[in-house]
């Protein structure tokens, strides 16, 4: 990056800074504004909506919210709500939050200019980042993350290649395969290391009836090709995901798409010093937080995939909770407890299904850790030694 001489540095203030304009951040900003707070919403992209702007399929969830509506249209509605809302959210698009300083200042970059922002509360809704997978030649051009494939084809209308091998049969792998078919790209197969399909079966059925085989208990061994992907070697694996010798076979493809999971984007939370905890069920390291989405630092809140990788419907409710709690810590309002309780009930319902068991396990771990921590704090305040 070039240095600019004529830098003007002035400290901007706001009551609540929301980092990330996906469903979680949008919901948070909206609630906080409703409660009369001054809110600054920041996203590094030129548009609002986060992951939603690439989701061409109709979403699941509650009819009371946005079920049955395509992700792209949910993004538009949420952004519209923000415009027509009761108060004004100051929007900072094309703006990246680079870092957090001890004194509570966020370092914000826009148009190659860096400036500080001093919020009284911060809501981190930065979403998640794709995981990588180890295999030979995984750095060849043509090995793309599922999000990249979506960006290319659904945002820019450029096909990623002619024939794709999808790695991962979770919801993302299944949906992106379906979207590839819609964009007129052949999908050779979907490969999944687990013994079963992880994503929703109705999504699996969509691709299967188009003739795409889903190979469970399989993995990719290597990408082949000189300068770009020209093929992939896949093989069967045992229960411990170890390759079974003699089961290798090569498939001719020019794109290998990785949909092997997401991990929360938590750099800002780490820099700030929020306590983190490793919960594989939620995608990796997640910030410790309570029911009100408050982290271990009282002025920092978290919501959405950054708090643990789940779903857009859940991200929105978490965003609401974070927005209400953050605003509630600045403004007194009698309705808060009731609002929060309703949100928590909604979350409970959204997570109650067969596919929610992973989240439930992960969240239980988080809850226990938070509890232990509370005891330890109490001990300290009574002068007793930490356990």
């Amino acid at each position, binding site marked *: 990056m070039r240095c600019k001489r004529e830098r003007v540095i002035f400290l901007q203030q706001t009551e609540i800074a929301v980092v990330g304009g996906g469903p979680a951040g949008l919901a948070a900003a909206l609630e906080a504004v409703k409660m009369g707070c001054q809110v600054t919403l920041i996203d590094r992209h030129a548009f609002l909506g986060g992951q939603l702007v690439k989701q061409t399929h109709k979403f699941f969830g509650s009819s009371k919210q946005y079920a049955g509506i395509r992700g*792209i249209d949910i993004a538009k509605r949420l952004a519209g709500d923000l415009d027509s809302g009761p108060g004004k959210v100051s929007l900072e698009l094309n703006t990246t939050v680079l870092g957090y300083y001890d004194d509570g200042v966020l370092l914000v970059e826009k148009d190659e200019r860096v400036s500080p922002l001093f919020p009284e509360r911060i809501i981190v809704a930065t979403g998640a*980042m794709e995981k990588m997978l180890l295999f030979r030649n995984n750095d060849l051009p*043509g090995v*793309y993350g599922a999000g990249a494939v979506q*960006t290319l084809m659904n945002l820019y*209308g*450029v096909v990623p290649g002619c024939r794709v091998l999808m790695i991962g049969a979770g919801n993302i792998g299944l949906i992106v395969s379906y979207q590839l078919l819609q964009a007129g790209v052949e999908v050779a197969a979907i490969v999944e290391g687990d013994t079963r399909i992880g994503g929703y079966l109705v999504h699996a059925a969509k691709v299967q009836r188009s003739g795409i085989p889903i190979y469970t208990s399989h993995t990719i061994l290597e990408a082949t090709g000189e300068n770009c992907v020209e093929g992939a070697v896949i093989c069967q694996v045992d229960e411990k995901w170890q390759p079974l010798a003699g089961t290798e076979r090569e498939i001719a493809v020019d794109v290998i798409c990785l949909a092997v999971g997401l991990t929360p984007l938590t750099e800002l939370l780490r820099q700030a010093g929020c306590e983190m905890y490793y919960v594989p069920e939620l995608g990796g390291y997640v910030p410790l937080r309570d029911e009100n989405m408050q982290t271990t630092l009282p002025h920092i809140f978290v919501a959405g995939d950054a708090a643990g990788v789940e779903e857009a419907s859940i991200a929105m409710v978490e965003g609401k909770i974070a927005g209400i709690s953050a605003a509630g810590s600045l403004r007194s309002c009698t309705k808060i407890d009731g609002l929060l309780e309703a949100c928590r009930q909604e979350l409970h319902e959204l997570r109650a299904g067969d596919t929610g068991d992973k989240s439930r396990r992960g969240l239980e771990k988080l809850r226990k850790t938070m509890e232990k921590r509370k005891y330890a704090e109490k001990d300290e305040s009574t002068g007793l030694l930490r356990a």
Partner: protein
Amino acid sequence: MRVIQHPILHFQRGREIKFTFNGRELTGYEGETIAAALHASGVRALGHSPRLNRPRGFFCATGNCSSCLMKVNGIANVRVCITPLQEGAVVEVQKGKGDILATD
């Protein structure tokens, strides 16, 4: 290769834009990134890894991974996956780690 027709989306492409890749003239559209325009023209290998000199393409397309560093208008280490295409851009494969002070 571009998506010509799509059952859900309608792509409104902007103005046509001319740019060069390693001296070769290519066209893209206003509003897309350099990486998207290159990909649409069939360019998938964007550079080489600095140490082992292995070919590199993009991976994340959101500016997270730095797999897509190229030299654009003389400036090295530009993440082309998030950089908008501009008229007359000179896009080149970068050698090694790129010269951060170069202003040629």
